[in-house]
């Protein structure tokens, strides 16, 4: 037998699609996912944007049910494992956020107020970026940039879950890669919430009076466009939410992690630059809306960078180890 299987001419080759039976379930899945998207758009328009954690999880769960119709049992088992991890990840996040203000574990670290304000002042030559932006741009009437800032802010609640859902349904390998990086950012973020509770700028102005007064109304631009946020009664379950979880800014982290993940597949340089504008707009919005200090966002970005670097390093080492095992076994034959 020849080592090389010569390619026959195309005239003699049979298209696999012509002989292998069609996967009918795939058609069902595509139809179900299409129907789901239509329903979600309708829901978004009539009931409001699904944004709080449990509603997002339910919406994601329904989508995954559509995406896994007719898939082999082994894949359903893998889905169950993934879903468990996903839920545990968010549960840990909510719990440690609560712990940060002493509600859950009784742990309480000193609240950072002046320190972050001072870092921002050093970076901006003695100015407070939050108050500078609001004094220049905030008006009683809603301007176009209020809509941009508000909409960008709201994407935090659904962009990453949408990306995860899409990857979950279409490409499990990439989903796992994304989830590992995402969970690392979330985990380190949670630890920082506990050991470094930090007052956001609006609180620093309102409760501690260490910067000029700033207005906090992150959703007004979003509402002005006719959108609303859907909130189910079970939002009460999120009462652990912690107001002093400014450091790091996960808004900034999530806004970077999505474009950063897809960056290798975007070939034109200009497109890479365009998608990286999004995290910059997010950070500018967070500062303008008084939700975060600039340093919160920079630390959030650094977390994303660290997560990507660590996982890239670890995955490369894993591949090398697998190759080494193989070469060693080959040599021992």
């Amino acid at each position, binding site marked *: *037998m020849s*080592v*090389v*299987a*010569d*390619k*026959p001419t*195309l005239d*003699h*080759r*049979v*298209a*696999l*699609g012509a*002989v*292998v*039976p069609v*996967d009918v*379930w795939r058609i069902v899945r595509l139809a179900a996912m299409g129907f789901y998207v239509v329903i979600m758009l309708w829901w978004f328009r009539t009931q409001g944007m699904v944004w709080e954690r449990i509603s997002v999880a339910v919406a994601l769960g329904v989508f995954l049910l559509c995406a896994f119709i*007719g898939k*082999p*049992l*082994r*894949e359903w088992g893998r889905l169950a494992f993934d879903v468990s991890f996903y839920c545990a990840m968010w549960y840990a996040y909510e719990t440690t956020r609560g712990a940060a203000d002493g509600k859950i574990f009784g742990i309480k670290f000193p609240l950072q107020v002046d320190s972050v304000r001072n870092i921002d002042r050093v970076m901006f030559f003695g100015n407070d970026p939050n108050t500078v932006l609001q004094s220049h741009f905030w008006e009683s009437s809603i301007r176009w940039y209020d809509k941009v800032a508000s909409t960008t802010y709201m994407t935090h609640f659904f962009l990453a879950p949408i990306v995860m859902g899409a990857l979950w349904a*279409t*490409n*499990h*390998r*990439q989903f796992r890669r994304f989830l590992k990086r995402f969970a690392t950012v979330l985990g380190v973020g949670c630890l920082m919430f506990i050991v470094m509770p930090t007052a956001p700028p609006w609180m620093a102005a309102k409760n501690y009076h260490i910067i000029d007064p700033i207005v906090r109304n992150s959703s007004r631009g979003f509402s002005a466009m006719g959108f609303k946020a859907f909130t189910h009664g079970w939002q009460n379950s999120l009462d652990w939410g912690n107001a002093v979880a400014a450091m790091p800014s996960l808004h900034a982290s999530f806004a970077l992690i999505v474009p950063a993940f897809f960056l290798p*597949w975007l070939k034109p340089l200009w497109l890479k630059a365009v998608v990286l504008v999004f995290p910059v707009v997010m950070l500018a919005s967070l500062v303008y809306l008084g939700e975060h200090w600039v340093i919160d966002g920079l630390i959030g970005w650094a977390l994303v960078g660290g997560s990507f670097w660590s996982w890239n390093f670890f995955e*490369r080492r894993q*591949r*090398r*180890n*697998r*190759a080494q*095992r*193989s*070469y*060693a*076994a*080959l040599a021992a*034959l």
Partner: protein
Amino acid sequence: MNPPSVLLDFSFLTALANTTNPNHSGAVTIFSALVDDFVEQRCLLFARADNLAALANPDLFAPIDKLHIAGQHRNAAAELAGRTEIEIDLAITLVLIQRHRIRRIASFDDHLARYDVDIVQRPSAASNVVAPESPSVPAATALEPGAGQLSN
């Protein structure tokens, strides 16, 4: 989004694992190039889980991911075998590579060459297809346009 996937079929795995197989040296050459590509994320390696289990050499096949055969794959293969002269084992492989959109196969089985898949060749046999942007990549594993990707 994934690197192109390559299926290592049973004829190839057998040749690789068995030093007395006449195709062993060819298999080693191809496999080494594929593993190098795997490390550099230029390809993903797959094999049928039942084939890997039959040869029981997990270290040798460490870079290879398993393709598990589900009931629906067997049913589709039985249907394919029922209306053609294709053997059930080959039919299962065809169903798997179609469902997972794999279009490159490392194989010494001439039957697969009848289908519109790329059979991975020895570097020396295909030196004229080295990708110009990656001259160090052995020709057998240079990424080719249209190479299939695994969807999950």
